[in-house]
């Protein structure tokens, strides 16, 4: 991977003094992931270019990981600028980065005309521009195309920055922003990373419009680190500066999630359930609410994903609950397409936003296992109302990439009626969320109760 710094400051070869690397020699450094070279493809009084070339040894890079992953063997690390290059830059140009020069102490603080080129860098034109332009650079970031047979662009750009800045500022920008664009670090990020960020960001980061994004990515999305860094950048305003997660779509469904949960809880209250199943409990959002209500004496959360259950256990602090609380809650791995004897004999089962994650041909298996085999006295099902989707600006397709279908109100009603008839339940449908005249509510809920004859039998 490669980075070149060109100046037309007169005499241009002063660049060698600033970098403390003589233009007429090839400088070679051993770095942990390979060999770094500094060499000058041109060095005249008019124009001088220093190149930092990092020859990555994939073997040594690999030695830092041990998990089996194909990505370890075929990856872009030898070619794309990343934290590897930033680390090499910090090592090789240490004093220039600090803004120190024995030979040209005055020039250090003088903005000089600079052209920086990074031929291969992960990122988009838009992001590169957003990051560098506020710092006084004029940015050209040209996407690198994939081969014609595949068409389209790769996720790399060829970056050229032009501007009149001090060399030290330029190097510090690169040191921070190369890994930010790459959005990864090749080493374990410890708390001292915050200091590195603050040191290199001194004088420019605090005023950068995208400082939150920069800090977040630089600190590899570790929230605690980010908070500390932002506090130090701007004092008490830190909290307000951190939006929930600006890189994800804005969570407009949050209030809906609450309304849905409340509707489910109301249905459970209505049927007087005390021993309940949350089938497909995921990370345990509903379980938390159930645990808070003492009327639920036995709460079982099931999910097919062992990982989700771990998250739920952590969220509910299962291992730290008092014994009496702990025995109220069970978390089991189960799959709704298999019958599971453990799930028989409960008052109610909740399928909150679950059915739409199943391929339609597999629904009968779910119906048989839940309504046929587990046979709780009541079943609460919620699912999106597809008709309502037109109210979500910018939504194309379904609400979640894993949704296999989304039902209209009529489709849901048909399904609920058929299931109720097959398995001897009665069903009532109710809307959840704000009502739109034409399209109904965002969520629809069905409450199945086993028919009274069964209950008395």
């Amino acid at each position, binding site marked *: *991977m*490669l980075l*070149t710094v060109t100046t037309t400051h007169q005499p241009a070869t002063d660049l060698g003094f600033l970098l403390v690397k003589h233009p*007429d*020699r*090839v400088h070679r450094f051993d770095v942990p992931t390979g060999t770094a*070279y500094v*060499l*000058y*493809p*041109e*060095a005249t009084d008019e124009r001088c270019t220093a*190149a930092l*070339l990092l*020859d990555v040894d*994939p073997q040594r890079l690999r030695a830092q990981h041990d998990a*089996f*992953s*194909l*990505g370890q*063997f*075929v*990856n*872009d690390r*030898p*070619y*794309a600028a990343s934290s590897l290059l930033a680390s090499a830059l910090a090592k090789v140009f240490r004093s220039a980065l600090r803004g120190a020069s024995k030979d040209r102490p005055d020039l250090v603080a003088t903005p000089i005309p600079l052209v920086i080129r990074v*031929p*291969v860098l992960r990122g988009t034109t838009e992001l590169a521009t957003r990051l560098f332009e506020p710092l006084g650079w004029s940015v050209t970031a040209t996407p*690198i195309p*994939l*081969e014609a*047979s*595949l068409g*389209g662009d*790769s*996720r*790399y750009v*060829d970056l050229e920055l032009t501007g009149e800045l001090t060399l030290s500022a330029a190097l510090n920008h690169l040191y921070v922003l190369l890994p930010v664009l790459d959005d990864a670090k090749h080493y374990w990020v410890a708390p001292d990373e915050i200091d590195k960020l603050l040191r290199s960001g001194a004088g420019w980061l605090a005023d950068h419009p995208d400082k939150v994004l920069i800090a977040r990515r630089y600190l590899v999305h570790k929230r605690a680190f980010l908070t500390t860094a932002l506090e130090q950048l701007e004092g008490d305003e830190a909290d307000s500066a951190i939006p929930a997660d600006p890189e994800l779509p804005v969570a407009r469904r949050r209030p809906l999630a609450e309304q849905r949960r409340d509707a489910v809880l109301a249905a459970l209250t209505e049927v007087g359930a005390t021993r309940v199943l949350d089938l497909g409990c995921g990370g345990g959002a509903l379980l938390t609410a159930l645990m808070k209500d003492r009327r639920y004496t036995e709460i079982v959360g099931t999910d*097919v*994903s*062992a990982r989700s259950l771990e998250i739920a256990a952590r969220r509910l602090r299962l291992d730290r609950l008092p014994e009496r609380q702990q025995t109220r809650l069970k978390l089991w*791995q189960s*799959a*709704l*397409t*298999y*019958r*599971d*004897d453990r799930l028989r004999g409960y008052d109610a089962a909740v399928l909150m936003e679950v059915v739409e*994650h*199943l*391929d339609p*041909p*597999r629904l009968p*298996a779910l119906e*048989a*296992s839940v309504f*046929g*085999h587990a046979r709780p006295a009541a079943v609460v099902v919620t699912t999106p109302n597809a008709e309502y989707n037109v109210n979500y600006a910018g939504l194309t397709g379904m609400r979640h990439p894993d949704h296999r279908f989304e039902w209209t109100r009529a489709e849901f009603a048909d399904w609920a009626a058929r299931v109720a008839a097959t398995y001897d339940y009665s069903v009532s449908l109710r809307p959840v969320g704000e009502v739109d005249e034409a399209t109904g509510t965002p969520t629809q809920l069905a409450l199945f109760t086993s028919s009274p004859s069964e209950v008395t039998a």
Partner: protein
Amino acid sequence: MIEIPELALVALVGVSGSGKSTFARAHFKPTQVLSSDYFRGLIADDENDQSASADAFDALHYVAGKRLAAGRLTVVDATNLQPHGRAELVRVAREHDVLPVAIVLDVPEALAWERTEARPDRDFGRPVLARMQRDLRRSLRSLAREGFRKVHVLRGADEIAATEIRYERLFNDKRELTGPFDIIGDVHGCRAELETLLERLGYTLTRDASDRPVDAVHPEGRQAIFVGDLVDRGPDSPGVLRLVMGMVAAGHALCVPGNHEQKLARKLNGRNVQLTHGLPETLAQLELEPDEFVASAKGFIEGLVSHYVLDGGRLVVAHAGLKEAYHGRASGRVRSFALYGETTGETDEYGLPVRYPWARDYRGSAAVVYGHTPTPKPEWINNTICLDTGCVFGGALTALRWPSRELVSVPAEREHYAPVRPLAAAERPDEGLDLADVTGRRHLEYGYGRATIAAENSAAALEVMSRFALDPATLVWLPPTMAPCSTSTLDGYLEHPATAFDDLRQAGVERVVCEEKHMGSRAVVRVSRSGAGDAIWTRTGRPFFGSPLDEQLLARVRAACAGVLDELATDWLLIDAELLPWSAKAAGLIRERYAGVGAAGRAALPAALDVVERAAARGLDVAGLRDGLALRSAEIDGYTAAYRAYVRPTDGLDGVTLAPFAVLAGDGVSYASRDHGWHLALADRLVAADPSLFTPTRRMIVDLGDAAAEAAATEWWLDLTATGGEGMVVKPWTGLKAVDGKGRLVQPGVKCRGREYLRIIYGPEYTRPEQLDRLRRRNLGRKRNMALREHGLGLAALDRVAEGAPLWRVHELVFAILATESEPVDPRL
């Protein structure tokens, strides 16, 4: 000489010093004896710590329960002088449906005291012993009442010392009888149909002076087994009884009782029973018979054993079926289950009891054959079958031939009795799968080997299976992973045909077929004449492209398969194939990973070279660096060429082809034992039928003794891989079931990948000598074990599909393949 059942819970009863432990040592294996002293020691480090007794007995009962559940004789060495303690033992025995037996050692108190005093660890006084003695006297009176089925009282040291134990078999244990059998369903007084059926089965009827059949003999010595319900409703219950009693007496038949016999016997014993369900007809018919006949019929019924375990344990016959835990057990509830089945306590709209579908949960290896529930057509459900085809209701009388499992039926001559509820189709066998059949740590014996699936691998597979895979009823097989050939030491090669041939030679294979390895995505195709249940799925069981492309693709495959379906006389086929090009399915992966790296490399390396060249032009010494970059540049070009070879434009199905290489199974048959000549000939037929859809597989047959043939195949491989081919797979010619000298499965194939192809696996620069040296240390053992295990599981799944095994039996294997795939293994292999 005392007799105890082979499977029993034996309680030794006696005071301290009566010689229980000595007796136990003399007659039983140490592991059969659970001593209360020993368990007190386990719990409290002191065999005499009475405060630990409650916990010690808890543990003892627990262990006794585990032993009995596994069918092992268990002896409890404790004083057992207290009724509440003995009641626990009776409970444990009943819980496992074994007979509780008591052996009482009754020695004079003086002798017991002498022995007790001699033991340094016994420090209780004579009054305690005297109290024990009183307890013993009391116990002797109540043992039988407490539920001990046999009570043996041995009096005095001499009798105890002289006692020998003989084991008696349970009446239901007929494992030594191996048949062949003809198992006959509910007759219900349909004598004429029974005669016809017996003759159809090849029996010769013997008749008495009045021309009534009294016996039937099969010339080949076959034995009939009646599943009960001989009587009631039909026109001639006495006639049926006479014939069956004669056959049983002559040893030509066995018979288990049905609930109707049971009720008849109760009536004949003067008990008050409801005169319903055809009993009045039988009573009226018996009125016409002499008293001796009625008496002998009563004796016959009372002598019937509720179920039989036959043919080395492979066959169980009981009137209403029997769950596995009850096989070969004896208790009231076992008898009740065998006679009446398990009911849910509810009644249906005709007022008849709703039966619990025990067969749905049956997971035993013994076939259970039964009657009791009229059904229009006998069907195997989880290795159980009901033979009651409602003859008396105008259905048919059915027999199952064992071990051939062939069904023979004769239709009823007329409707002898109007059914209470219509003889509708049997409740559809619930094919729903039970989570317990796939999750947790599982041990599988699958005929080609045995495997233990770790619980975490099952957990991982469960997610894939239930969130992404096709319906398990469709997904009857998954392709096994394939190991590469042993690592080559030839200069510049990691894999080479020479080591592939060596691998198979060492496995004892004489002839191999080298098949071109297509670089695409594995696809398993199921097509049928009707199109119902057709599917195409990936390595992990997911629908291939999804709707509607899959349906369109399947329609074309179906059309091309028509001739082959006819020729193989099957309604459906399972085809193993590679779908091409790679980019059709993996476009995202190629763009993100492979092409992205290529683009980055092709941009970065020339830029670096340019810098270095210009530095060189300034007179700097950068020769080494330049050479290094030039090499890298060539390597990234090689890498790019490697993945580009598998990228071709496709639009929908345009440009998509399938390269079939094996036809795995059809209706009732696994083709795994066919040689690859057969498989490839069928593949060629498909290519001929639709050349635009199917891609042929190039191949070469090599006899491993023939050096010239090996050299030619090596040349062929070099050509293939030089022009962008991935490489080849070398397979034993004899097919998927090839075995080595010891009869063990050999790898169904080893892959031998091309030098250039491997750049996209091991990285562009892997061909450098120092890298190759390092890579040569790769370890293939784990991958080979996985490949072989998955292969065996897959073969077993195909066998089970062919024999019509219940879905869970197929699914547990397919699931195990998926679970095995989640074991961590070097993905480059």
